[in-house]
């Protein structure tokens, strides 16, 4: 059976001797520390069985050191180096001040390991003081707040501007668009019917290509899935805890205090040694309600809270860009506040990275919903996500087409993330953009069969808001990566470039075009007018009819296939009602297109916590925490 470290055993006994904790608390904290794979002091602090000030002051007294509050006497910024931030956060040790000609180092984990590290880094002549873990974290954040805040917004735009969505339309794109509009107008004026027929033909061919491509994707994606999943599962069983790397978990949140217990509970359930987890809850500095809730829940003992300074654009990628600079893991993953990842997800990802070639920089896990049976929308959304993550993305992976990453549960290699300047804060689907950018830079994305369950939108209005952001982001992504078509073709290959056009372009364009074709069809079907006949010469009419029947039938069928893998066939009949879902998608597409022009960087916030299931999840999470 595993045992506490010598340092933890000694600390526990010492605190009990001092009467700062009871023996019962010591026993319980010891077993929790073993179960969570974390240190004894972390458990005591997380449980609030000992006050942080008391603990660190006692510890300082025990080692004969001074105890300082960095909040009151912060470190001298001149002593810190930006390139060492990761080390400061990992070792919880920073150069503090020079006093009496002697450098003083502040540490939140006094002990033999820290002393060795300090002497190796700063030499034997330094003096030590003790401080608290939150103080170290906060002090480093304060010093680099301004610099990191600027970098979070402008790093990509300044260093790799062609990959940044800060410029929505480049001059070249505007010129091209305007020239195309002019040619179109001239053609319409001179040969209106022929021009409309050509436009009709182009759109019909696009529809045909779009649904054929997606059918091929599904087929390709289904071929090898199970074998790979089994391979990874057996490799996970062979992993030893001591071989696992440090893993950073970023959880960006904004005004979501209610779902914190779900998050805390889900993260605690992760099958990964807590001592190797670097969990950062990323909050906007002004979001006091969530910060207070996190503090009240005692999350600071285990999770680090990163407070993002206010700046524009106020987007999730900007917050992540800020926070990831404090990360100390070899890998990094993003979870949303209400996410419930499957416990073995991190281990599966580690295995996947281990088994992959060096150019694999990201592993995307599947997303799905825990409240799928709540109403019609949640069912349709579940079908949609199942189709996307369970069937289409594996197809993209199989065909080596750039994968637009999903909103959360994408796991990165930290070195590559730094090299690529992380997320584009001006892109409102920054993950999708990053996936494509990675492929263009020669990296690959892999998928792993592990699911993170989220809360599906229960309200259509909220859903349209969320989807409009996604589609606007797809438009931004498309505009960014199509700036250099030859480069795109060269870096992703013909199939990759075609796949990008159909998958990213097709998703947004079909949402925009569907209402046009539906309206034409409805007018024709209801009025039986012959006015449209000239726009549909026979071959085009048959093609359009084929698209209408085969395309819609195929997409419905694909929707039906989506829940098969997860044994959720009771959702299948709802696929027959997908037309209304597509109508909502078109509404969102037009809203997104409008916002692309008027408010390109505006982040349409999705409100979480509206689901009845989420309330139940919160209650259950609180109960489980109390029981733990």
């Amino acid at each position, binding site marked *: 059976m595993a045992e506490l470290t010598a340092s933890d055993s000694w600390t526990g006994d010492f605190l009990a001797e001092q009467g700062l904790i009871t023996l019962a608390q010591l026993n319980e904290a010891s077993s929790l520390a073993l179960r969570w794979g974390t240190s004894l002091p972390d458990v005591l602090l997380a449980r609030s069985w000992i006050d942080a000030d008391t603990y660190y002051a006692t510890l300082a007294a025990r080692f004969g050191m001074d105890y300082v509050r960095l909040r009151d006497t912060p470190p001298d910024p001149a002593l810190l180096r930006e390139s060492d931030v990761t080390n400061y956060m990992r070792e919880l040790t920073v150069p503090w001040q020079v006093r009496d000609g002697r450098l003083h180092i502040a540490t939140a984990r006094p002990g033999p390991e820290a002393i060795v590290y300090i002497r190796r880094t700063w030499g034997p002549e330094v003096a030590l003081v003790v401080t608290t873990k939150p103080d170290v974290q906060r002090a480093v954040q304060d010093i680099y707040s301004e610099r990191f805040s600027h970098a979070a917004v402008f790093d990509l735009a300044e260093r790799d501007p062609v990959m940044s969505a800060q410029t929505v339309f480049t001059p070249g794109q505007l010129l091209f668009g305007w020239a195309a509009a002019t040619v179109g107008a001239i053609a319409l004026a001179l040969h209106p019917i022929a021009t409309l027929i050509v436009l009709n033909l182009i759109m019909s061919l696009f529809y045909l290509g779009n649904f054929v491509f997606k059918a091929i994707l*599904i*087929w390709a994606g*289904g*071929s090898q*899935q*199970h074998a790979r999943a089994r391979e990874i599962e057996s490799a996970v069983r062979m992993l030893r805890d001591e071989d696992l790397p440090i893993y950073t978990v970023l959880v960006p949140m904004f005004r979501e205090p209610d779902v914190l217990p779900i998050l805390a509970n889900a993260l605690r359930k992760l099958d990964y040694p807590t001592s190797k987890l670097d969990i950062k809850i990323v909050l906007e500095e002004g979001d006091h309600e969530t910060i207070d809730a996190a503090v009240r829940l005692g999350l600071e003992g285990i999770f680090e809270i990163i407070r993002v300074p206010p700046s524009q654009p106020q987007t999730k990628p900007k917050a992540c860009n800020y926070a990831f600079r404090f990360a100390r893991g070899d890998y990094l993953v993003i979870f949303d506040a209400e996410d419930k990842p499957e416990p073995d997800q991190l281990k599966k990802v580690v295995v996947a990275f281990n088994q992959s070639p060096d150019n694999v920089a990201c592993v995307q896990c599947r997303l799905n919903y825990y409240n799928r049976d709540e109403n019609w929308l949640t069912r349709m959304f579940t079908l949609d996500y199942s189709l996307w993550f369970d*069937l289409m993305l594996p197809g993209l992976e199989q065909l080596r087409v750039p994968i637009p990453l999903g909103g959360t549960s994408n796991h990165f290699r930290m070195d590559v993330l730094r090299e690529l300047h992380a997320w584009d804060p001006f892109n409102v689907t920054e993950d999708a953009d990053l996936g494509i950018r990675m492929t263009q830079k020669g990296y690959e994305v892999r998928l792993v069969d592990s699911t993170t369950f989220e809360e599906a939108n229960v309200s259509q209005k909220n859903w349209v808001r969320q989807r409009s952001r996604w589609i606007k982001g797809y438009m931004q992504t498309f505009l960014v990566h199509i700036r250099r078509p030859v480069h795109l073709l060269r870096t992703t290959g013909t199939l990759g470039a075609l796949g990008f056009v159909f998958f990213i372009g097709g998703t947004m364009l079909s949402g925009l075009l569907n209402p046009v074709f539906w309206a034409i069809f409805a007018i024709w079907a209801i009025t039986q007018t012959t006015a449209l006949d000239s726009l549909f010469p*026979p071959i085009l009419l*048959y093609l359009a*009819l084929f698209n209408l*029947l*085969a395309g819609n*039938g195929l997409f*419905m*069928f694909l929707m*039906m*296939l989506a829940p*098969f*893998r997860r*044994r959720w*066939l*009771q*959702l*299948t*009949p709802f696929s027959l009602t997908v037309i209304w879902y597509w109508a909502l998608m078109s509404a969102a597409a037009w809203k997104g297109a409008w916002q692309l022009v008027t408010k390109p960087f505006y982040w349409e916030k999705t409100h979480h916590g509206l689901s009845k299931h989420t309330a139940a999840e919160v209650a259950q999470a609180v109960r489980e925490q109390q029981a733990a």
Partner: protein
Amino acid sequence: MTRNRLWTPAVMLLAGTALLALLLALQARGHVSGSGLDLWGRTLLANARLIAIDDILTAFPPLSYLGSIVLASLFPWLGPTTPSLLAAMLGGVLVGGWFATLRDNGFGRWAAPAATLLLGANPLFLRAVAEGPAFVLLHWGVWLLALGMFQLRRGHRVNDIILIALALVLIGLSHPLGLVLTFAVLPFLALVMPPDRLRDAPAAAFLVLLFPLLFTAASFLYVNWIFGGAPLHFLDTLSRETAGLGTGAETNLADDGLRGLHPALLAAIGIIAACPIGVSMFVRTSGMPPLRFAVLALLGWLVSATILAALFDLLPSPALVAGLGVPLAAACAVRWPHERPARRETLLLLLAGMIGALVLSMADDSSETHRWRRAALGQPVPPPDPDLAELAVVLKQHDGILFDAEAAPAVVALRGRAAGIFSAETQAFQLAGLGSGGDAKVLVVRNHASSFGSDRIGRMFPELYDLGRPGYVRVFDSERWRVYARREKAPL
């Protein structure tokens, strides 16, 4: 590129060429199947624009028809070999597909070609190819369906659902017998569905498998409604002759009672004879429910469909139906659970199937199989329908013929050209409908008392068959057809 991928196109090409050569040899001895003639006749009419495009789009079964029209449009010089080429191409690719899947599933360098040869040279498969592209498409459908059904319960992959669903669409659109096959498969799908899915949501499980078929059927009815004015418009142009069922069903229960079931029983036994590997697989897979249930379902399906086809009076010649056991045997060989990689047992079972198929093709005394057998043995072959052949000979000498050609397209094929015929879509035909007879020099009419009933000419002029028409003289007379030619005015 793997060696397998290099060899597969070569096998396809080789098989396609061999099949085409065989078909041309059969043709040289006078053998063209009734449905092949029918298809070529309709293709001639379509490409001469004597059938409206709306009627082409609403025709049933559509796949072989559209394929033949496209091929004939692309390569007009192919002439009457077009349907044969289409059948040979489809057959060749199917044989290549068998080879590729056998290789992918562990058949060795010699075992795979040997198994492919035993399947591709199976007399019942050759009989199906000689029948025309529609039956080869049915073979495709059965093979894909079998692959999906074998794997679905085992692998739980969506690909297998797609295979099953699309195979059902293919079967349904290939041939009228396909309608019976798709109907007959319903209870057997339950045997191959993963039990947990079936238990949780049986209706949804069936919905996902059948949706493409149902949606295709609904789309077909909708297309008929748009272009034909009624969802069931295709029934107006569908006759037994155009449906590829030959000149009559092989069973007639109303007249013969249970004895009429004899061809069905022969066909059912033939399926087993052509696919002994299926029976053997059922015996050998105890303890492997996914495979055992699948092979049981597939054999049960084909046998039940045979009986149902007989009951619906839609049974083609027994050799054709029994031939569906060949693609099933190919799927069984691929999924055979034992003995890798020598495959001696599998090869012996395929050989047994070949011998069974040979016996069955000798035992089948239906007229079409009889003609095929004679051609294959180098003997003279009678025409598929002497009545139509004689009619075609007469019409060869004339132009300006008012003829409901869609009711007997084989006549057009036997005549060799569609030019000179005023078919239902022409102005002359429509003028004739006004009662004048138009400018037609020749009137062709079918006997309303024949098993096919009146054609459109007969419906326009109900007394034409019996009484003729003033100014016209009868130049051809049979129990089904009569031809009247305008009496030429004597020169002054």
